[in-house]
């Protein structure tokens, strides 16, 4: 029976548009959909208490990814272990698998469990599933109240809690939580995050952002550009404001890393594609390409950005150059991989594999993912091996790249073979 190829354009999700090419058996989707409708749904009809349908292999990849992450010993590697576990949970949420995510989160033993609960609560709040959101919010609050050694860990959980409370309309609680968070540094900003101003304040925003940049404080500058990018998206259909925002970005961005500038341009290109403006998207991508070509990088970073821009270019419609760029990334890896420390090789390959899949070339994608799996075991220690295998499985699940029998066997062999030295 032939598989049905669903094109990337069928799977645009949200602002970031993490589209995923998926290959399912034709009987699979209706069957899962029926099961989903019978068994799922919370008090709201749009609820996503249960997992949305994904292919069995995706679920299996997620399970392997989580099991592999969980194989990392708590002592001394609890931070590495939890971080890898969190990455699986994040992937679950991207794939609309909240129930599966919840089962994984229970096994996370440090502050990241709280962060994951908060993220899950936010996911449910966004899905208008308030009961579930409240439930996981409570669990997140409990962990946020514990001592995790360094305050920023608690703060990261609390930040998502505030965001979720606002989403749920719990304004009083949100204000209180926000104040607790804000008190850490300054009480005067309490409640500020809830203030979503009117369009008329655009000029004031621009002025304030310039003030932030003038401080010369790196975090302030980085924050400013994040906000600029959102302004660009928000006012895309207002040519004057959009071009003013773009001008401000490019006037001031000397103070941020080139990598951050490329990310900025990529986000802006996404906005252009979202607003059906492929020419502008390509203009931005070409500009990012110039930045990439004009700077020296660690090879794994260069390959990552080559892949990213290839993906953006493909989505903007320049499929031919996108393909040649990503092929060039493979050649670069082949020719110079000895320059990449072995623990960073698999991540470079994952970015390529993902892009091939986005471009619809599943065979090339699978081939690259196989190489990523092998490169991930070059280091003699199981911690980086586990981190790489888990990340590769997540990436394949997210982008719906089904391992063949040979790769499944290898994945299981590596996962099962983890052990000393860690």
């Amino acid at each position, binding site marked *: 029976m032939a598989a049905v190829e669903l094109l990337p354009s069928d799977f645009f999700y949200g602002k970031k548009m993490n589209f995923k090419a998926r290959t399912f058996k034709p009987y699979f989707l209706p069957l899962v959909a029926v099961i989903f409708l019978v068994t799922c749904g919370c008090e709201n009809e749009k609820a996503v208490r249960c997992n949305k349908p994904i292919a069995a292999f995706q679920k299996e990849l997620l399970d392997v990814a989580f099991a592999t992450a969980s194989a990392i010993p708590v002592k*001394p*590697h609890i*931070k590495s272990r939890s*971080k890898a576990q969190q990455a699986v949970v994040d992937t679950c949420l991207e794939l609309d698998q909240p129930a599966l995510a919840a089962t994984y989160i229970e096994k996370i033993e440090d502050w990241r469990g709280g962060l994951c609960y908060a993220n899950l609560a936010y996911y449910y709040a966004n899905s208008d599933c308030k009961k579930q959101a409240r439930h996981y919010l409570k669990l997140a609050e409990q962990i946020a109240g514990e001592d995790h050694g*360094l*305050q*920023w860990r608690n*703060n*990261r959980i*609390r*930040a998502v809690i*505030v*965001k979720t409370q606002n989403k749920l309309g719990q304004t009083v609680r949100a204000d209180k939580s*926000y104040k607790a*968070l*804000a008190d*850490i*540094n*300054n009480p*005067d*900003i309490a409640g*500020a*995050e809830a*203030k979503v*101003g009117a369009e008329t*304040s655009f000029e*004031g*925003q621009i002025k*304030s952002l310039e003030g932030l940049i003038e*401080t010369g*404080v*790196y*975090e*302030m500058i*980085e*924050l400013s550009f*994040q*906000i600029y990018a*959102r302004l660009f998206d*928000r006012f895309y259909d207002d040519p004057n404001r959009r071009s003013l925002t773009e001008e401000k970005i490019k006037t001031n961005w*000397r*103070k941020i*890393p*080139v*990598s951050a500038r490329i990310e900025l341009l990529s986000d802006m290109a996404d906005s252009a594609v979202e607003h059906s403006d492929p020419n502008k998207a390509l203009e931005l991508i070409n500009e990012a390409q110039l930045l990439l070509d004009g*700077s*020296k990088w*660690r090879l794994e*970073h260069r390959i990552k950005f080559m892949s990213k821009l290839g993906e953006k270019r493909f989505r903007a419609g320049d499929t031919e150059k996108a393909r040649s760029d990503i092929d060039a990334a493979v050649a670069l890896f082949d020719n110079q991989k000895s320059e990449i420390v*072995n*623990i*960073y090789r698999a991540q470079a390959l994952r970015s390529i594999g993902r892009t091939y899949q986005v471009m619809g070339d599943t065979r090339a994608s699978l081939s690259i993912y196989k190489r990523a799996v092998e490169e991930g075991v070059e*280091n*003699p*220690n199981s*911690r*980086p091996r586990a981190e790489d295998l888990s990340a590769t499985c997540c990436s394949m699940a997210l982008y719906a790249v089904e391992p063949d029998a040979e790769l499944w066997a290898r994945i299981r062999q590596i996962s099962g073979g983890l052990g*000393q*030295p*860690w």
Partner: protein
Amino acid sequence: MKKFAVLLIAIMGIVVSIADVSIAEVGTNVNANISGSAHWTKTGSPYHLKQQIYVLPGATLTIDAGVVVASYVADQGSLAVCRGAQIFVNGTKCEPVIMTSAEDVATWAGSSVRRGDPNNTVVEIIGMGDPKSGVWREGCNEWGNLTIMGDALISASHYGGVPVGTNTKCPDGTNQKQMEGLTDPVNGMYGGDNDDDDSGEIHYLSIRYGGKVVGLANELNGLSLGGIGRNTEIDHVEIMNNVDDGIEIWGGTVCLSHINIWNVGDDSFDVDEGWRGSTKYGLIVQGYSINASQGSGVGDNCIETDGAEDSDAQPVTTAAVSNYTIIGQPWQSGGNGGDHGTAWRDNARVQYTNCIWMDLGEKLVAFDNTDGDGANGYGYNGTLSWADTWKTSYNQWIGMAQSGINLCGEDLSAIYAQYMCCPADANLACIKDSVFYNNVNAAAYTEADARGVRNPANNNVTASSLPIQAITRGSAVVKGGKTMLPVISINPCAANDAVHSVNQTPDCECFTSSNFRGGFNTCDNWLESWSAVDAYGMLISGQECDKTDFDGDGDTDMRDFADFANGWLM
């Protein structure tokens, strides 16, 4: 007869063997890089670093509580943790991990050593004595150091006025630099684009008598931290008698707590290349490690802060130091005492809160402007001037929030939690809620006053009473042309104006608040039991903490009830 002869030879062999064992070196030699993760235990202790040892990317070195790493002078041993590798130093208050020289071990009660070349140094540790004993000696440079390299952002576009490789001022997210004293062009690099990087954990580690460079013609700091990310945990670390700086941090976002730095030969705490972290609870005691020039044996600045290389590069040092007790060298005659409390260079921004600054040889605030290696100073290329740095709020964006300007739907709180590391309501550079005592240099407060440090709003106190419980100095000695009054014993717990601060130190990205000045409250001397200062008998005991004295101010009152209630209600 023949059988008897064989038996005799065999018995003699056994006797020789036993003799060999009885005089054999104890411990474990480490003579190769660590590529597969390693675990150092008390059974294998002491460990001898026989050369520059790298913990290679992907590998983890775990060191158990109570382990001693003692290297021989002749071996030039040193330990470096590469980018992508991790170290876990699992010392405890009762059983710290000690990284030192065999010369130090030789002073411990019960130690047995054999001496030889070069210069009658220890060449074998035959029996290791009590790590909680020993004698302070004039000495350093007896082994290397602990260097950790990470993947967080650094600002290293220039050095010595010339560009570093292809690094940029922005930076490009991939700035990296070769670590001082290391020669390996791959494994000796630090810096990257991951501020959340995790190089492991260090708890209760005493580093002594080090600084000997292995590969290049420069000195090593006691603890070198290059591009270390905020997921790395460092607390209860001591540097005693190093030839160069005590701790130097280049870039990154790591936070440190409970730091004790004594008698190092250069700056006690040195920061450069855009460190964006914080440190809380510390004791710095300036002095000397050997009779050599200032900077190579005699202490220089207590805290030296460089912003970025160059001054208009990013990231720039934007850090917070709170609850430190900083004790300088006060000799004044002939201008031959210690150096400054704080030295500021290349656009550095540091917020000092709830500290004690006492016995400083020169200035509380020294405006160096540049680091003297060709970089430009404050105000260069549109950066804030020196004066404006002391007037500009870290949190100018508060104004934006208060005026109700929207953030395009962006969740400010999320960004706030992820990017802030300093007290937001303070200015980029400040010294607040601190005690100044016995800083008698004619220019001690000149620059500080010009920056408004002693304005009433800053809640600083220029005290007439000792802000710690006890300090004893030895007779004046001249070292490296400077007159030193070595601290020979101390009880650093808070006294007088240090017992209560006006405000609590703000909760920061890393640490919770406290309500006293200096590194210690009135009764909790966190140096006890694990530090060289205690082992060498330099710590004077003080009062025990009352179980109901929650804030450690020496009495039980409404503040304690408030602390208790807060904790209970949380």
